[in-house]
């Protein structure tokens, strides 16, 4: 009997403690999202080096590639891979240009290529910073408040939930940009992209967007 009373009291205490904490926590996520969105709104250009490590069921071993990333808002994106093979992907407006030494330059329109369009939308969204707008499609958790870490778990109605378990974004201490992206898929494939030597709002050379 005493145990039962104690149990009820304990649950009540937990509830009392939990409700405000939960409210504070929600408020924190919103304010963090707003803060990041505001910070990233001020970002016009990004240049960074990256190291991407993929642990995929398809491969015997983790695959690591390194290269450079360039972003110029609103519609320019360049992914230059240097190791282990050389290739470049440039998106300007609705045109995608691909280059690798053996195939040369390939151009395609996103409008005419639904597969590529879906892929590009995936890429550009996470670099855009407009995370508040995706609250409808993702549960967003603040994992770490000091050096901001946000976890995005796709909701059931979101088609991404069929493929993706979650995406975790690690932000720089000044909350100005992403320092690491971690992507966990349903089949336990894990992709991790680490950005180093990030330069914000430095001028990007025009040649970056050109392919010869």
């Amino acid at each position, binding site marked *: 009997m005493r145990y039962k009373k104690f149990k009820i009291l304990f649950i009540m205490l937990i509830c009392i403690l939990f409700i405000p904490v939960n409210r504070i926590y929600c408020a924190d996520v919103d304010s963090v999202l707003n803060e990041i969105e505001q910070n990233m709104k001020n970002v016009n250009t990004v240049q960074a080096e990256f190291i991407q490590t993929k642990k995929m069921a398809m491969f015997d071993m983790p695959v690591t590639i390194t290269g450079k990333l360039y972003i110029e808002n609103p519609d320019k994106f360049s992914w230059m891979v240097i190791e282990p*093979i050389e290739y470049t992907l440039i998106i300007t407006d609705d045109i995608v240009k691909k280059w690798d030494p053996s195939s040369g330059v390939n151009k395609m329109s996103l409008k005419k290529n639904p597969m590529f369009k879906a*892929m590009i939308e*995936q890429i550009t969204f996470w670099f855009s910073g407009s995370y508040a707008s995706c609250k409808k499609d993702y549960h967003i958790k603040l994992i770490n408040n000091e050096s901001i870490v946000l976890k995005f778990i796709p909701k059931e109605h979101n*088609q991404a939930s069929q493929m993706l378990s979650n995406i975790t974004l690690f932000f720089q201490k000044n909350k100005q940009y992403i320092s690491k992206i971690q992507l966990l898929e349903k089949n336990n494939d894990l992709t991790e992209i680490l950005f180093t030597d990030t330069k914000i709002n430095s001028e990007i050379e025009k040649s970056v967007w050109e392919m010869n």
Partner: protein
Amino acid sequence: MSEMKIVNKFDNFFDNLFNFIGRNKIIFLILFIAIIAGSFVQIFRQNFVNDISVMLPDSPELKRSLNFINSSDMSDTIAFSLTFKPDSNKNLLSKTDEFSNKLKKLDLINTVTTGIEDLDITTLKKDIATLLPLLLGKDDYHLFENTEDEEGISRQVKQMFIMLTTPGSSFLQTSIGTDPFSWSNHILNKLQVLSKSMGFNVELENNHFIDKTHQHTLVIAKTSVRVTDAENSEALLLSIDKIINLFPDLNIITICGHKHTLSNQKVVKKDIYITTIIITISFILLMLFTFRTFDALTIFILPFFAIILSVFISSFILKSLSFFMVGFAAVIAGISVDYGIHLFTAYKTNGYTRFKKTIKPVLIASLSTMGVFVSFFVSSVQGYKELAVFSILSIIICVILSILFLPHFWIKKKFISKVQVPSELSLNKSKLVLIAWGIILFLSIICMTNSDFLKATDISAFDGSEQKVFDAESQFYSIWGGEKKPGVIITQGDDIETAWKAYESITKELETDIKGFNSLAILLPSISQQQQNLNDFKNFWSLNKIESLKEKFLKETARYGFKKNVFDNFFLLLEADSINATAQIPDVLKIFKKHFVKEDKPVQLFSYFSDTKENLLKVESTVKDYPDSYVVSRRELSSQIGKQLILDLKKISIFAFCWVFVLIILLLKKPSHILLSLLPVVTSISFVFLVLNLLSMEVSAIILITLIIILGLSLDYGVFISSAEPGKELNSVIVATTFSMLTSLMGAGALLFASHPVMFSIGTTIVSGVIAAYLSAVFCIPAFKKVLK
């Protein structure tokens, strides 16, 4: 001698009948009032329709096209374009979902689509990959080129590695094991073409239809309410408006055929209301200021009663009564009041004797006018037939009552004052009149010969919707396109497999020749062709070939660290042992079915093409070889309607002219009388074209049909004036003709205040025609008589 006897016998009979009605006029009056009251009740219970099809020729091809349009996506669709008002900044896609959920709750709405909800591109690519042996024909085998040499394989594996290491590529993994060479992309590209069959320029964002600026979303609702069903259209649009009002931060543009129906009805109702008031006031003023006697009221009220009675009788004869017919009521009132005026004027001038003498020209005039309306029965347009029934009944009732019933209520008091009649013009003035007439006639004939009669086939001239309806549509089309509806080829068959053979052949013939050609057969071969593709695929991918590719491919993939078993499904696919051609439309592609297949009896399969003249010619020449296929296009429909309308008008004109000639030859006999009575006819018809030219109005089918009515009206003037003896008789006839012209002008002139283009064009045609007919009859006929004397 015998003719005299017949005339005397008829005179006696008429006198007896006239006197009998006169003795019992109160009983007849009570009976008349009772019938009018009963007619009123019937008219208020009558459901008038505003269906454009009653104005179109009745041909099986037209009916088939119209039935298709009425039962297809084109007619039961309500499209909404949504965007936020300037100060709002919320999630448009979630608002769109909210709006669509509200629409779904409406009873009159069947389905609501905001995008391609079931389209999961990852699953689609994977599923399409498993169908490749069925879908790829020999023409597609160029896709296999990369598999034939080591360099090609190496290049492809490298591309695969690149794709898999590009961010956002995770969904590629599901299909890469089955389709490492991305052959399914070839099919996916064809799917892009299929999505254009919707008719709007849409892009997809989170499975929602969005425009290219990403500022607007599109919602498409389907309703069970027919476009021609005005009552339910009103209920439907009212409930939609209520939902729209729940979203004050959204700008929502709605377009649908139902809006045209309601708007046309509103405009026509308003026009009828305005014209009725104008006619009533004008008739009363004419009565008070010209006849200056209250018994004249009877002749002005009579046409209204005649119209009420004819609507009442027509409701038993005709299946439905259209607003178009009611629109003509004012014109009919103007025509049928003429007989009463002529008889009343004669009666007042010289009593019963002159009244009796006037009966003959009244009968000739009414018979000639009725003859014109009888000619409408040779037309295949239901609306013209309705108009003929309604007009003939109105004229018969008016003539009978004017001759036998009304005179018993007229006071026998002379009222006609002296009127300066043109017969008193001098020879020189008569010559001047004829010169002026000659110049106007010459100009009118030039305008008539230069008129573009092909424009008369434009059915859009019947649409009198308010400007706001057209404005909303042009705003919508500027965002989404789709103003020009595609042409459709309908291929029928007892079942889908049977129909598909012709469908596939038509597609093969037109796919490359016609820009914007769209058919599900571009993607999906017939079952027999699928089986053939499977056999060809198996023959191509012999076990040796598969083994050779496997060896080279796995060697290359191993270099990049791929596991060996990742591509097992790909090699099983190449063997194609577990694949069979069973379903014409595989489950994965059923999302496109609703645009291309109607599983009715018979099954209908649709192909779409840009509805241009050039394409239509190509399509028609191909489709004629397929008896179970036909084309429906607005261009085709317009051309069919045009051909039929012109054919109809020719038939009506020939019949009307023959009737008029026979009648005037039989009744007028004298060649000079016959020729002079035709003078107002020629003048008025050609003068209408001069006026149309001056007002920059296009010739429409309505105008052409109204000209035939002008033919009857102007002949009346010609008959009365050419057969009157100069002096007192001509004076009386001209006075009567003047009143007759004034009443016709009031009836038709009131239509000049109408907003509906159909009613306005009727008004313009009749006013200009009647004025020309009157002036030529009153001035030119006496002038000709004077000059030729």
